[in-house]
């Protein structure tokens, strides 16, 4: 038992890492090949890199619009959820409201429901009920920002609660004694201390919103369509353009990879409702 051979484990984990990374590498390989080369025997190594697929994606006005939508919707949603979640956590942490623990638990049930079940109800409400004159929330960015709250707002509340609970109440009380208003206490005492937790929440909610597909596919038609839906559209209409499809996938993947390093330690806790500290 004591005499284990570390190199054996290194070898084993190199193999596992290869299995993890190879599909991602393959996506890149397909994205930098011209269409004519795809159907010859697949080469694992790249001989030359062909950027045209990426240029085509960037030159496509529709796809550029989808990228902007994705950016606006996920940033708007992440900001909204983090702000509302922070205020809600402050309320849950500092006030002695009746039934607040039930409310806290209730919020997560919103996240447990399968999104497919939400499709029809949200579609019906957004077309039939939530409308002012001719304006409906369907196919609008603000509509999608609000819809994504159903899964991101409970998440924000659940990840921020320990952060806010961990900030000593005595600090607020001291500030109140000094005559500060509640708003001042929240923005100038609690907020600076909660900043690291808020940053993680902001990033993870942003990624979840950016990655979302199902609701975007059913609740948008054109104006608010996101990059993930663009990807699936591309496959069904022009299924043979694999290079373009791979390039769109890479574009969709990049933001998640960029923030990956910052939130790596929090991903597992985030995906298990805090049941496991990663």
């Amino acid at each position, binding site marked *: 038992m004591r005499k284990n051979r570390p190199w054996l484990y*290194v070898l084993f984990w190199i193999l596992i890492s290869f299995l993890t990374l190879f599909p991602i590498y393959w996506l890149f390989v397909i994205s930098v090949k011209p269409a004519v080369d795809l159907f010859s025997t697949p080469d694992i190594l790249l001989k030359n890199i062909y950027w045209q697929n990426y240029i085509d994606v960037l030159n496509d006005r529709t796809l550029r619009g989808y990228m902007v939508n994705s950016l606006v919707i996920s940033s708007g949603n992440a900001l909204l959820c983090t702000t509302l979640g922070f205020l809600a956590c402050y309320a849950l942490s500092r006030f002695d*409201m009746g039934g607040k623990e039930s409310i806290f638990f209730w919020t997560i049930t919103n996240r447990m429901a399968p999104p497919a079940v939400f499709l029809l109800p949200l579609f019906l409400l957004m077309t039939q009920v939530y409308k002012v004159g001719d304006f409906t929330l369907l196919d609008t960015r603000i509509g999608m920002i609000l819809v994504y709250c159903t899964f991101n707002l409970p998440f924000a509340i659940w990840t921020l609660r320990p952060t806010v609970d961990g900030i000593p109440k005595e600090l607020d009380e001291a500030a109140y004694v000094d005559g500060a208003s509640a708003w001042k206490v929240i923005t100038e005492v609690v907020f600076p201390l909660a900043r690291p937790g808020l940053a993680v929440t902001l990033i993870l909610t942003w990624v979840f919103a950016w990655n979302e597909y199902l609701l975007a596919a059913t609740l948008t038609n054109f104006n608010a369509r996101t990059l993930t839906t663009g990807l699936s559209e591309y496959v069904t209409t022009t299924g043979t353009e694999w290079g373009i499809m791979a390039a769109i996938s890479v574009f969709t993947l990049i933001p*998640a990879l960029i923030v990956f390093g910052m939130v790596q330690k929090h991903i597992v806790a985030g995906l298990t409702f805090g049941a496991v500290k990663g």
Partner: protein
Amino acid sequence: MHSNKLGWLLLAPTLLVLFFFGVLPFIYVVYVSFHQWNPFAVNPDMVFNWAENYRRVVFDTQFLASLGVTAAFVFFAVISELILGYLLAQAFMKDFPGKAIFRTIHTLPLIMAPIIVGSIWKLMTTPSIGIIPNLLDSWFGYDLNIGQSAIAAFITTVVMDIWHWTPLVTLTLIAALVSLPPDPFEQAQIDGANKRQIFWHITLPMIRPAILATVFIRLMDALRTVDEVLMLTGGGPGSATRYVGVHIFKEVFPRTNYGYGSAISVIVLYLTIVVCWLLYVGLIAPRNKKG
């Protein structure tokens, strides 16, 4: 301290958003599910028809078939992820160089969008451009075609899910294994227990809560798998991989038979709650009572 009014005021926006986009949709969908309603049919009005929609759902063979394949998918995916995840977690417990890097690489799939995972596996497995059918063909002479073979498509979706989610199981079990106290293991070794005995009588009981929590989370997630399967197989060939979410998205939603679609949504939500509750009562609650 301030009055609770301020607390409710701070909580109000959250409650409002969740009410209008989380709760009200379901009250509304239950209401619609008791009506005959298809705005594009000859009679576009909403007509109350008791439980007719529910009666049809219960006898809808397509829907029942999708429940069946969903159950098979969830079963095979979660079992494989659990076993693999445990073995990988154990392989992580020894000391070896580069641990942090390997762990980082292993976490990577977890942040990827399901639809991108589907897209990647489509590029890996599509005949003529994918590397996997090519290798299988040249090594074993096996012709992998997920567009034609139902079983190949099913297995590919399971493998894709394993690739995407095993890391979650590994990392949660690593967290559980790291937190175990060393004493019982040392004692067992002194008492001359072999590896298998140690596993069954010490390790397994001690990490049981972590395993159950992981199974619970993975099951709930696997039940709602849609995006990646939609991308990889589109639910095909035939209805081989048309899992329940895919069924709603591809068959129910586009049909504009809102009453019927509402009934299916309500039933799927109800089944999810039942599964969730059964898991909780059957697996997690009894352990807590004893512990």
